[in-house]
């Protein structure tokens, strides 16, 4: 063993051992460090990392809730969530995509373009993310797919729910739903919690107004997911809550009827209960197909809507602004009576025109109406009479009355489309036009032309408030069981005919707000309107209803688009001979039945010429239909009264 150099070896060996000792000490220190790190991560910070791990592991998917229904006054659903048959495809589960598409093309009606679009989508997505092959299959296609399902691997027939409208008769007032946009998310607070990808929200009309409540509570599914976001298994599911359903004051039958009447016209009709403001019908024409909006709009259809000069997308009853024309004469007369400017029997002579302030003001009747008092002025719609009245009254007093009756302001709550219109006066002109008021403009205002702008809804409300004896009502479209004060008062009055209550007691006992100083004035206007519709010479006499059950009292009007030139006036150019765009808008307002008013109506026909010729016949038909259904409506109303 003791070989040469063994001493050397021993020294070397000792050196090695010494240095190894140092290394071992260093190792021990590192070991302690490692254990320390483990303690820190797995004991001290375990809670933090456990929650981070769960955050990794679980992901929640929101489930779109079922949208509440919108019903008409008789509980017919006019907007509902109906089952929808869709075809989804999970590319991961399909063995041979090309083959599958060939089979699908044979079974369904899928275009080549759609197929190549789907293939592009599939390429972009993860293989387990479904693509929608068909958004809305009819039942026969859906059952055919189910029949061939065994040979269509990867295809999933899905039953979903989607907004469905029975027809397009109420498209404007109901509005439509469509996919949430980025802008919606920014502007609408309630959507931030709700936002579910692919969920439809209300964009216009009632769908928009009621959106927050009708949309329901979002449910969610919690899944365990892997690092690539693929769902591994479901952990928990919360179905959410279907949205609240709403009952409206609309009558679906009348909506359908009116819509048919207005077909192909650019027109609007509004019917209102004169005592509680219930909007029985609100139709704008031409209409559009709201169902088309639910599943992403077809471009060609959209373009056809946009390019149509009759503007099918606009709700003309709420957002169309038209000069009220002669329909305002009711308020001009009322304002003059209330302000003691004229007495009912004061007369003016109409020679067909008057000259004032160096300007000629024409009556629509070229030869003049002769001696005209208030009743005759309204009956014949004599412009000269109202020039004189307006001149004496002044625009500021007129505007005060017009505003009191609901013109110049929005009358419904939260309708994005509704516009307020204009009731001009001297202050208004100074503020918005920056000029002083000319006296001639007062005369134009007196026959509802010039700066005056109103919506058909406002004109309907105006007429309703005249019809009900001059009390303020609040138009409503959602049934809420309130608003029956005026009917209660009438009931009280009928039951106690011998002890009429003084006006101020009416106000305090029935919470009514009279719009008049003397109710007799209101009755004078109503009587004049009756003569306009039911006495020879009246502007809508030709379209009267003689059955006293249906008899209505109305006022025609036409709102000028273009001023007649002197030459046209001389040549007695007829409205019908003008180009469509230059014809006057035809207006008609009325209430019925005259003896016991229940409903007010306003009819607008864009470029319809004169109100008496085009608007009044429509009003006549609608009034008859509405009154025929009156008993039915009252019976439902009484039931609602009981239940609330």
């Amino acid at each position, binding site marked *: 063993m003791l070989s040469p150099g063994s001493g050397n070896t021993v020294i070397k060996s000792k050196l090695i051992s010494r240095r190894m000792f140092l290394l071992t000490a260093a190792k021990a220190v590192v070991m302690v460090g490692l254990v320390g790190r483990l303690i820190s*991560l797995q004991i001290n910070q375990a809670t933090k990392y456990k929650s981070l791990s769960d955050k990794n592991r679980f992901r929640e998917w929101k489930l779109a809730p079922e949208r509440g229904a919108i019903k008409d006054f008789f509980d017919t659903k006019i907007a509902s969530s109906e089952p929808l048959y869709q075809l989804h495809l999970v590319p991961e589960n399909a063995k041979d995509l090309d083959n599958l598409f060939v089979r699908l093309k044979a079974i369904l009606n899928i275009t080549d373009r759609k197929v190549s679009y789907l293939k592009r989508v599939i390429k972009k997505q993860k293989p387990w993310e479904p693509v929608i092959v068909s958004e809305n299959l009819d039942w026969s296609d859906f059952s055919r797919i189910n029949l061939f399902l065994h040979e269509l691997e990867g295809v999933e027939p899905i039953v979903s729910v989607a907004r469905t409208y029975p027809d397009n008769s109420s498209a404007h007032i109901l509005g439509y739903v469509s996919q949430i946009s980025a802008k919606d998310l920014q502007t609408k607070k309630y959507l931030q919690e709700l936002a579910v990808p692919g969920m439809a929200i209300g964009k216009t009309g009632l769908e928009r107004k009621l959106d927050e409540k009708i949309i329901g509570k979002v449910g969610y599914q919690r899944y365990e997911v892997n690092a690539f976001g693929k769902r591994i298994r479901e952990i928990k599911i919360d179905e959410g809550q279907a949205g609240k359903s709403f009952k409206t004051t609309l009558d679906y039958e009348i909506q359908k009827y009116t819509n048919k009447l207005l077909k192909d016209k650019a027109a609007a009709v509004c019917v209102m209960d004169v005592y509680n403001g219930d909007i029985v019908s609100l139709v704008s024409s031409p209409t559009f197909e709201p169902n088309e909006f639910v599943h992403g709009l077809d471009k060609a259809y959209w373009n056809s809507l946009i390019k149509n000069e009759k503007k099918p997308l606009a709700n003309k009853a709420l957002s169309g602004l038209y000069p009220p024309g002669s329909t305002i004469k009711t308020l001009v007369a009322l304002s003059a009576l209330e302000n003691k400017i004229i007495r009912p029997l004061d007369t003016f002579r109409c020679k067909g025109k008057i000259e004032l302030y160096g300007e000629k003001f024409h009556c629509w009747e070229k030869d003049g109406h002769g001696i005209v008092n208030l009743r005759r002025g309204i009956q014949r719609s004599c412009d000269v009479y109202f020039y004189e009245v307006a001149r004496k009254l002044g625009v500021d007093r007129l505007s005060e009355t017009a505003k009191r009756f609901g013109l110049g302001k929005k009358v419904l709550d939260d309708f994005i489309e509704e516009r307020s219109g204009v009731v001009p006066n001297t202050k208004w002109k100074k503020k918005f036009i920056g000029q002083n008021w000319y006296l001639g403009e007062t005369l134009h205002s007196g026959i509802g032309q010039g700066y005056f702008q109103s919506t058909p809804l406002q004109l309907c409300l105006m007429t309703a408030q005249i019809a009900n004896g001059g009390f303020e009502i609040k138009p409503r479209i959602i049934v809420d069981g309130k608003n029956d004060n005026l009917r209660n008062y009438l009931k009280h009055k009928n039951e106690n005919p011998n002890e009429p209550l003084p006006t101020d007691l009416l106000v305090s006992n029935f919470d009514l707000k009279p719009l008049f100083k003397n109710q007799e004035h209101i009755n004078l206007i109503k009587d004049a309107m009756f003569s306009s519709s039911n006495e020879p010479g009246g502007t809508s006499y030709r379209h009267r209803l003689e059955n006293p059950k249906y008899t209505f009292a109305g006022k025609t009007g036409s709102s000028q688009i273009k001023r007649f030139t002197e030459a046209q006036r001389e040549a007695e150019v007829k409205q019908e001979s003008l180009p469509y765009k230059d014809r006057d808008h035809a207006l008609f307002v009325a209430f019925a039945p005259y003896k016991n008013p229940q409903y007010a109506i306003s009819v607008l026909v864009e470029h319809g010429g004169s109100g008496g010729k085009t608007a009044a016949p429509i009003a006549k038909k609608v009034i008859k239909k509405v009154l025929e259904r009156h008993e039915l409506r009252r019976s439902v109303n009484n039931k609602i009264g009981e239940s609330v």
Partner: protein
Amino acid sequence: MLQPRSIHSSLSFKDKLFSIDYVLVFSIFILGLVSILAMYSTDGGEFKYHTNSHILRFFVFFGMFLFISFVQIRFWHSTSYLIYILFFLLLLGVKYFGLTSSGSKRWLDLYFMNLQPSELMKIGLIMFLAKYYHRISIENINHLRFLFLPIVVLIAPIILVATQPDLGTALLIAAGGLTVTWLAGVRIKFFAFSGLAFLALLPIAISFLKPYQKSRILTFLNPERDPLGAGYQIIQSKIAIGSGGLFGKGFLQGSQSYLDYLPEKHTDFIFTLFSEEFGFFGSLFILLLYAVIVWRIVKIGNLTRSNFGKLYCYSFATAFFIYVVVNMMMVLGLLPIVGSPLPIMSYGGSSMMAIMLGLGIVMSCKVYKDTPVN
């Protein structure tokens, strides 16, 4: 004691069998079983490709380990240089015939397996230097003349491996080589000088780094820098280990690995997976097994008479320890991700083969502890 017989180096088979370190063999075997469990979990609780092939490799190379244990230490001593040269040639072979995968050329296709010679070089370098310092006399150790060869055999393979590029393995090879030179008695000043030289060259070295390597270092310094990119691995690994808590989520219940949040779970991050499923106590158990293995190797170094054996065992123990510690520090977020397998636990044939070869030579030192090597 047993001197007369040991001189003749004619031990009976029974003697050899008795002189094996059973604590070491047992520890390795237990670690192997644990690694199979972990691999089974990475396969989602099924015997799939990784598990089956890991089991096969473990038992084949465990057998090789036992076989090598009974080969005379004298044989390993005498062939050390040859073995180094063989491994070096294999590394050169990689450079010209290697397989490229994810941007680096590390493997040789041997038809029955893909060999990663850089793993073998970890052992080859230690063997070479252990023999070298065994042979030169103590006076000459610090002579510059005798430092020349060690520097060459150290630098040459490191450059080859680093340019594959595989920075992690290159550093681990360097760690093993430096350990031998340090233990052999090379003066500290040489290490200090070369350290300074290394620092001076660092900026140049950095300019040679691949963008992904730079990003790994930056990411290590601040893992939240880019949580979905380069920092993802460190963050997810820490989440997995931390969420394991005291007792772990349970066998086959590691959500982080089961749901694929954990990267490289078969190889570099196998400890993370085990730690997530078995918690702090499980991690401690693994740490303990490795400590026992290192301790037994050092103990064999103490027992063996030859300086070759001592140098080899001490250096291998230290290198083995460094492999373990570097891997664990990496997955615990204490070091940048350099790509270093955890000995025995990680999936990978070459690493398993190299470790078993290294352990076999250690055991051979034990069996022939009293036999002079030359």
